[in-house]
């Protein structure tokens, strides 16, 4: 990765999130087309995000649920 690429990496964050139609994003895209290393950086971040998004979400354990309704003095769905 050359120094120019390193400077681009900060901008890649924006490329992954928003402002996809911005002038800045067009410049980043053009750079990515010409730079395999930065493409790999972007891809690695995308894959990382996707992988973490695949972690299962926890269900609230039943006993935790029951204690919550008790603390709140509300009738839960099981009451």
């Amino acid at each position, binding site marked *: 990765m050359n120094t120019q690429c390193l400077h681009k990496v900060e901008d890649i964050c924006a490329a992954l999130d928003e402002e996809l139609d911005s002038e800045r994003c067009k410049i980043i895209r053009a750079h990515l087309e010409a730079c395999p290393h930065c493409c790999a950086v972007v891809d*690695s971040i995308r894959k*990382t995000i996707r992988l973490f*998004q695949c972690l299962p979400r926890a269900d*609230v354990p039943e006993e935790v649920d029951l204690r919550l309704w008790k603390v709140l003095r*509300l009738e839960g769905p099981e009451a």
Partner: protein
Amino acid sequence: MVLTYESEEQLIERAKDGDRGAQAAIVKKYEQMVYNVALRLTGNAEEAEGVMQETFLKVLEALPTFRGDSQLGTWIYRIATNFALMQLRKRKVPTYSLDEYNLDETRDLASFNRAIGDNPEALVLNAELRQVMEQAIEALPPKYKTAFVLKDLEGLSLQQIADMLNLNVATVKTHIHRARLFLRDRLADYVERARK
């Protein structure tokens, strides 16, 4: 029994008026969301339960003051996040900056990308990898962890997160970017170890 309501606005108004069924419906609707945020931020089931209880006690107490400037869910996220961060401060979780976090220029990201592949759902079935991922989130300093969890795991917008944390959007972006690089490098370390 939790009743159903025509709209969230109606639900909020009823709950503000002291309708216990409406209050229960709000708790039920956001319970899992709050528990997951608390669990991700504290990394501890017992603390997550405490955060969830404190959050909903606060929600029910403060509901009459809720003006609807943000969505109810965002308001509840904010309360839950604040309690979780307070919990981390109580635990004196060491905090350090990732702002100077250096990219490893020699890292073979093409190999990493091939190893992760295009089927992450199948990869996370691996218990050892899941543990590495959980530990990596846990190792993030609180401000980076919070930004990452809220954006990438909970799907909040940058503006919502900025408003919740009283930061500007640029700072939130930086925190998320640093967190992603940190997490990717932890994963890449694991992939490299596994290959040897």
